[in-house]
């Protein structure tokens, strides 16, 4: 029961906020309260799953071949907790004082609906309801893109919508073929039955699914909707999306990775796509001057690491992919929030226009430093452990070329962070003599909270990695448990 309520709570909040049309501060307070409840709930679920328990909720008590089940194992619990935490940080950052009353009032219900879609996607045990949940998230994101109401937001939404709709079409087609060969879309049943399916159809079905998920995760040849769109989103929402929405594709790939074991060629393709994403993404990022576009190309690169580790197809590789995904979500959200503060205090999106003389620059510089060091992988912070795990997994498999690509990409990552540092924190533009008057005062709560999350995550890297390892064993070790009858 509790899983259904957990899914319904943000959905109901979203719809009620939409209907009531309350003033922005009040709806923000309601959303904050709901998100605190969700965080507590998510941690409770994570703790229960940590004991190896698998939570199952069958809707209307219809058992799996016919009914749809919510199934939460360790992997799902990790991502649910991540989403709940980042939702809270986003809501703290999204203030009526800084982003406009109108924007906040329109964005909050959509954020809640997107959250419930993400929860549903992370909890469902059925591939078709995964599709429905993904669409729920996408619809809310299409609407969120339009909120700024500028021409750019409307034009830049188009490539995202068209590319994602094409990916959804591939997703449905893949599901159709998969249902044809397995007679079910329940993930556990598909895993059991796919072994006996004919090779050609299996390759076609899984290939279409992989292409769809790779588009949603923004791997290199399919990634260009993301750098076009994320810079135009409202910045805190972009932080949430960069953190969790790209991870939706990663999550789906992790979920179907036991299926991919039957078609190793797809895993190899994913691995190389990941390696090239890691390198090309960071090279594209280096050439950008618009801060948030630089960061979104960066996401492409980092998702490349995750998919590479997943493509290695060892338990340790999958575990490091999960750990890297968590690390990247926290760090990338923090960077987007810092970018938000920088853009507003400089009233410019361009790095070349930025000036280090601004209120709160010491706090911002510290937070940026923590996030940038974490991203680059400087030892005490989470990026070091994440990269170490991925490199170690690569080393074990003996993929030397891939390892070389990742190491080179890692050097460029540091370079691109230094670029932001140099422009935004070290210099003032020559032509601008006066200190820019800030449009709004500086609110450090959200960025500090995000930085604190990174530090806590780094300190708890050991237990979290152990949890990821257990999650990886659980998904690959199989999941006859997942069919719902325990």
């Amino acid at each position: 029961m509790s899983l259904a309520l957990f899914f319904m709570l943000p959905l109901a909040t979203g719809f009620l906020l939409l209907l009531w049309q309350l003033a922005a501060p009040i709806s923000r307070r309601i959303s904050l309260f709901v998100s605190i409840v969700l965080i507590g709930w998510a941690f409770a679920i994570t703790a229960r799953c940590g004991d190896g328990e698998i939570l199952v909720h069958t809707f209307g008590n219809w058992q799996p071949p016919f009914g749809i089940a919510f199934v939460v194992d360790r992997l799902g619990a990790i991502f649910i907790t991540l989403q709940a935490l980042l939702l809270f940080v986003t809501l703290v950052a999204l203030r009526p004082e800084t982003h406009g009353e109108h924007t906040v009032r329109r964005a909050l219900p959509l954020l809640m609906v997107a959250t419930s879609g993400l929860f549903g996607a992370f909890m469902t045990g059925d591939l078709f309801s995964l599709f429905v949940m993904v669409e729920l998230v996408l619809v809310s994101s299409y609407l969120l893109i339009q909120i700024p109401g500028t021409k750019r937001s409307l034009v830049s939404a188009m490539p995202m919508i068209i590319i994602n709709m094409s990916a959804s079409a591939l997703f449905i087609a893949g599901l159709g073929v998969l249902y044809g060969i397995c007679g079910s879309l329940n993930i556990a049943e598909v895993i059991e039955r796919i072994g006996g399916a004919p090779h050609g159809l299996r390759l076609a079905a899984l290939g279409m699914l992989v292409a769809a998920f790779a588009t949603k995760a923004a791997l290199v040849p399919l990634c260009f909707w993301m750098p076009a769109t994320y810079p135009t989103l409202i910045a805190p929402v972009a932080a949430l999306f960069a953190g969790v929405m790209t991870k939706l594709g990663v999550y789906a790939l992790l979920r179907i990775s036991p299926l991919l074991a039957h078609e190793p060629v797809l895993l190899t393709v994913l691995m190389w796509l990941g390696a090239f994403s890691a390198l090309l993404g960071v090279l594209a990022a280096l050439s950008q001057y618009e801060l948030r576009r630089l960061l979104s190309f960066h996401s492409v690169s980092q998702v490349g690491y995750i998919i590479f580790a997943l493509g290695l197809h060892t338990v340790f590789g999958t575990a490091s992919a999960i750990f890297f995904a968590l690390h990247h979500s926290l760090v990338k959200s923090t960077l987007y929030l810092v970018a938000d503060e920088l853009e507003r205090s400089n009233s410019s999106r361009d790095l070349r226009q930025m000036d280090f003389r601004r209120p709160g620059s010491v706090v911002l510089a510290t937070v940026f430093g923590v996030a940038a060091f974490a991203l680059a992988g400087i030892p005490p912070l989470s990026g070091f452990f994440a990269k170490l795990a991925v490199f170690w997994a690569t080393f074990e498999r003996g993929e030397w070329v891939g390892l070389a690509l990742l190491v080179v990409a890692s050097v460029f990552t540091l370079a691109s962070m230094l670029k932001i540092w140099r422009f935004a924190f070290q210099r003032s533009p020559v032509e601008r003599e006066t200190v820019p008057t800030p449009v709004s005062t500086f609110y450090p709560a959200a960025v500090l909270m995000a930085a604190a999350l990174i530090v806590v995550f780094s300190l708890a890297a050991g237990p979290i990695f152990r949890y990821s390892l257990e999650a990886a064993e659980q998904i690959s070790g199989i999941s006859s448990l997942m069919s719902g009858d325990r």
Partner: protein
Amino acid sequence: MVPVIAASVFILLTAGVYLVLQKTLLRVVIGLALVSHAVHLILLASGRQGVVAPVLLPGGGTEGVADPLPQAFVLTAIVIAMAMTVYLFAAMAALAKSGERMEVEPVPDSDEALVPEAVQAELEGRVTRQ
């Protein structure tokens, strides 16, 4: 039944992909609709018994009955695809109102306001209409 479905999927998909690759937005949207029809047919065909078989017989027998699950899937997928298409038309209407050419174009770098300042102010409740 299978050759008919396969042929329809082929035709819809070819036409859809051709239209999606055009520059005019209206064609792209129609193309996306055609592509989604094609994949819905694939999903429907996965029920094996052909599209005309019923899911329930009056006598209660199970011989020649189609699998109801793909039909339920297709219903859901059709509704989602319809909503997306309507949304795209609405977005196109907004673009058209602003005097844009309805074409797929590179994303602009600047952040020019789409809605005139006065209307935006009214929307945000800063100014109330007399």
